[in-house]
């Protein structure tokens, strides 16, 4: 009994000290409470849709983060190596492409990805829902990977300024090992993890927004609105939109909140999942940066 109380106390102490853990627990608890509420008050088909949408969104977001890490790592290391080896033309070309991607708004890049997806569906190259979701994931990661690349470049630049690289080269360690293992893996994992947590929020925001736009604005084009259900596309459905529109009744009749949380659950649940996830992951990233003293207090 005492040991379990001690364990509980230690866990609570850890959560109090590390805000990222507290916010992650809060996110889990919030989504858990929402599901419990939906289980009681939301009809079964709608509840299934909410669950499937959240699952698809989280999986796609996590996939986008993983792909961003791979692309960002590769491009960041390539930038550094090209600069180190004074390959001016290759470096200039890579910079040109990177700057062009950076200057195109992310939502436009993702929309272009959806246009290409439409073409692939029409040509019957992509058929399954999983492949469509994977395509969207790749598109989102292309739109955001440069943030990882920038973090990697700044870390490599920092270690170059410390003459860490020159010293290790003198010790006979290969350039590749210095970059990938010594600098990025051993000395930059926390920075990368912080960036990836922040990117998870950005990826979810982008995906939900574009899904919402595509479902609302391109609804006459059947093939484009047939992509797997996500929180954005669920929010764009007529039922959910009516649920969100009903929120404005609260201005004239605050007591209508009792109706909102019982009768308009599908849209409110989808909106809650999006906003709560964005808030929590921003706080998790911030808390992580604070506890590791990466760039905050």
């Amino acid at each position, binding site marked *: 009994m005492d040991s379990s109380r001690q364990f509980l106390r230690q866990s609570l102490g850890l959560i109090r000290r590390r805000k990222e853990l507290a916010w992650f627990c809060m996110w889990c608890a919030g989504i858990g409470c929402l599901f419990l509420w939906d289980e009681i008050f939301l009809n079964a088909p709608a509840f299934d849709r909410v669950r499937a949408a959240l699952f698809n969104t989280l999986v796609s977001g996590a996939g986008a983060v993983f792909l961003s890490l791979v692309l960002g790592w590769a491009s960041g290391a390539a930038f550094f190596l090209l600069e180190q080896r004074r390959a001016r033309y290759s470096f200039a070309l890579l910079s040109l492409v990177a700057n062009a991607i950076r200057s195109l708004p992310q939502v436009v890049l993702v929309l272009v990805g959806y246009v290409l997806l439409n073409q692939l569906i029409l040509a019957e190259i992509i058929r399954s829902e999983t492949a469509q979701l994977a395509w969207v994931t790749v598109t989102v990661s292309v739109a955001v990977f440069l943030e990882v690349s920038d973090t990697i470049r700044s870390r490599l630049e920092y270690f170059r300024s410390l003459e860490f690289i020159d010293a290790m080269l003198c010790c006979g360690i290969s350039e590749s090992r210095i970059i990938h293992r010594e600098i990025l893996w051993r000395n930059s994992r926390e920075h990368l993890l912080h960036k990836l947590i922040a990117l998870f929020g950005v990826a979810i925001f982008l995906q939900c*927004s574009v899904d919402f736009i595509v479902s609302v604005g391109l609804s*006459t084009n059947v093939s484009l609105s047939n992509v797997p259900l996500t929180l954005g596309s669920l929010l764009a459905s007529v039922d959910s939109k009516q649920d969100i529109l009903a929120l404005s009744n609260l201005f004239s009749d605050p007591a209508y909140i009792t109706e909102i949380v019982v009768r308009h659950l599908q849209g409110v649940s989808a909106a809650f999942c999006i906003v709560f996830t964005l808030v929590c992951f*921003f706080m998790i990233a911030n808390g992580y940066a604070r506890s590791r003293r990466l760039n905050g207090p």
Partner: protein
Amino acid sequence: MTRPPDFLVGLSDSLKGRLVSHAAGVVFVAVALAGFALSFEANAPAESAQERHLESYLELNGVDFGDPLDRALFRESLDRFYPGQAARNDSLLQAIDDARVRRWSGPGLRRGDTNRGFSPALLPEIAWQFAQFLLVYILALLGIYFGAERLGLYRFVKWKQGRESYLGESIRIVREYRHARANSRVRFPKGAVALDILKALGKGILTTLFFSPAYVIAYALKTSVDTSSLPFMILLALVSNGVLIQASNRFFELLVAEDRKGYVRTATVKNLHTSYEWNAKEGVPVRVLYRISQNLGPHVLRHLYENARFQFIPAMKELGSFLVTGLVIIEMALNIQGRLSYNLLQQILFGRYDVACVIIFSIFLAVKGTEVFVDTWHDFERRRYGF
């Protein structure tokens, strides 16, 4: 040695390099978008020769094929031009009728697709929409810049006061009360605790609002507010999508990073004011939160603020790009007709990728313009501070 162009004279080498890089980026994206549009154009089903032939008849001035008299006159004219080919002339008239039916009942028309591909006549319309987009963008960007600085400054002062969390503050009051109760009879400070809980609630609602995607806020207000008006758009761009809160967080982090540097201790030793109490004699005046030009006098915060502001300038490039993303989402999600992003969505819907590419290029130019402005501004500030 060749002389650099006149517009590059007087600029620092790093800025010159950046401007050249921006120009190369514009050319690269223009070529890429042109290639993208042309590849779609090449793959689009070509209008058949017969369709083009029928179009020439349908565009004849003064001939209404719905009017029996005009039809009869047209038929007689055909007989005059092509005598002895009655069957051919009847077929042509039938084909014209079919083309008219197709023109008024095609799938594109059912979706409201009345225009064809890109033409110079579309440019004024796109330019007007772009000007509106730019106006909203510039005003929202200015709002975010000043809002982020003020919010960041406010958070920093609260952090220095050790009063960042209202809930934490109320817990502290309760703990102090429990500690004091052990020694003497004191009344529970209900008012202070209730006020802190209310403040925490308000902060939570504001945070939720700031992180809400624009379409959630706009749809929640759609029946009460005109969501297509320019002021609402600017306000929505400011408070939604997490732009303002991320920007203010960036500024706050810069202030905190500056606060850790050695010069702050030196300044303290040299008797600069270090109190962070609002409106105290040697503290921070509240007016810093709403005045455009900052005058903090001999307070150490002045130096923290100026150094953080200098580092915050380049962050405006990322914020600009993210704000454009937010604006595009707002215009598209709310289906605001006659706006640039709504037009872009319509062009994608109708498969007119050439017009879509022109609009994307104009949006790209808005972001690029911001980058050029921010780089020039940062370079100017750097030279002003003598870096």
